[in-house]
């Protein structure tokens, strides 16, 4: 007798993501999934987070990259735990990759994990990692019409950082247009204008992180 089974031998991405989320909740850890195009400023934004909130929060960084480990070396140089995941060609991280990374962290002693997802605006948005919040970076040089081209990611995030505002005088990025397109796709989403090179807005970014990672009391 033949029995049709059609069952995955490994658990699905969503069920692993749920397990990650439960594990983090048990340990009181906040995990941020940071997504952006290549070069938008993900690593720079993480560096600002460490500078601005590293004294108050025990942070760890998970670096997702297709092949290299330059970004995790940068973070380690700041005395912050950095784990490198090379996706080997895949354009996004999966919950299973994060699950293995979490095994290497002392979760009881960690308040905040920031994941630098692979530079890409399409695929990462489709994969739940078990994060507490999703943050994306749009940089001014990419143009204000990005949300039209990649609506899913703009709909899914809890926070939009507009980085490289120091370049506004040199590009045709229209902040009002951008804000209204984003508000249309994701009403009420918070937007912070940032310049990592000049430090503008980095205080707001650290305050948001401190608020998100604050231990829930009572």
């Amino acid at each position, binding site marked *: 007798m033949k029995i049709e089974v059609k069952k995955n*031998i490994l658990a699905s991405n969503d069920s692993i993501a749920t397990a990650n989320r439960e594990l983090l909740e048990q340990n009181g850890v906040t995990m941020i999934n940071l997504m952006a195009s290549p070069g938008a400023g993900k690593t720079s934004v993480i560096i600002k987070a460490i500078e601005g909130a590293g004294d108050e929060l025990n942070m760890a960084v998970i670096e997702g990259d297709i092949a290299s480990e330059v970004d995790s070396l940068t973070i380690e140089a700041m005395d912050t735990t950095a784990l490198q995941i090379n996706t080997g*060609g895949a354009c996004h991280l999966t919950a299973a990759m994060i699950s293995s990374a979490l095994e290497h962290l002392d979760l009881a002693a960690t308040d905040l994990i920031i994941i630098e997802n692979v530079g890409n605006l399409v695929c990462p948005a489709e994969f739940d990692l078990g994060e507490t919040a999703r943050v994306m970076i749009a940089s001014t040089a990419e143009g204000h019409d990005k949300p039209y081209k990649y609506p899913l990611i703009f709909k899914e995030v809890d926070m939009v950082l507009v980085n490289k505002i120091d370049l506004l005088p040199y590009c045709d990025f229209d902040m009002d247009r951008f804000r209204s397109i984003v508000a249309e796709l994701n009403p009420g989403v918070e937007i912070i204008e940032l310049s990592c090179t000049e430090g503008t807005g980095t205080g707001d970014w650290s305050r948001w992180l401190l608020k998100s990672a604050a231990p829930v009391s009572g």
Partner: protein
Amino acid sequence: MHEYAVTESILEIVQTEAEKAGGGQVESITVVIGELSTFVDDSIEFYFQALSQGTIAEGATLIFEKVEARAVCCECGMEFKPTNIYYSCPGCHSPVFEVKQGQELYIDNLEIN
């Protein structure tokens, strides 16, 4: 090492499914395995021999069905066959692509008697 866990999981599914069907001895198990899945079938076979002893799957044949790898470039949309994990798009050389098939790992069917 991972193959050990995978084999345990195969046996768990096989036992549940065979019992649901009223039991009996398992003759064969068809496992679909994508070209890009990192699991080695010889190694699953090896653990299977050991772990299936004394279960209803003891002596069953493991049949592996391979699925060819297919990917689509996230930059230019070209479809291609990634031959290894550090491949880049043959059209535009972008290293960023979405794997459409080739990462499968599931039990397709069982033969029991």
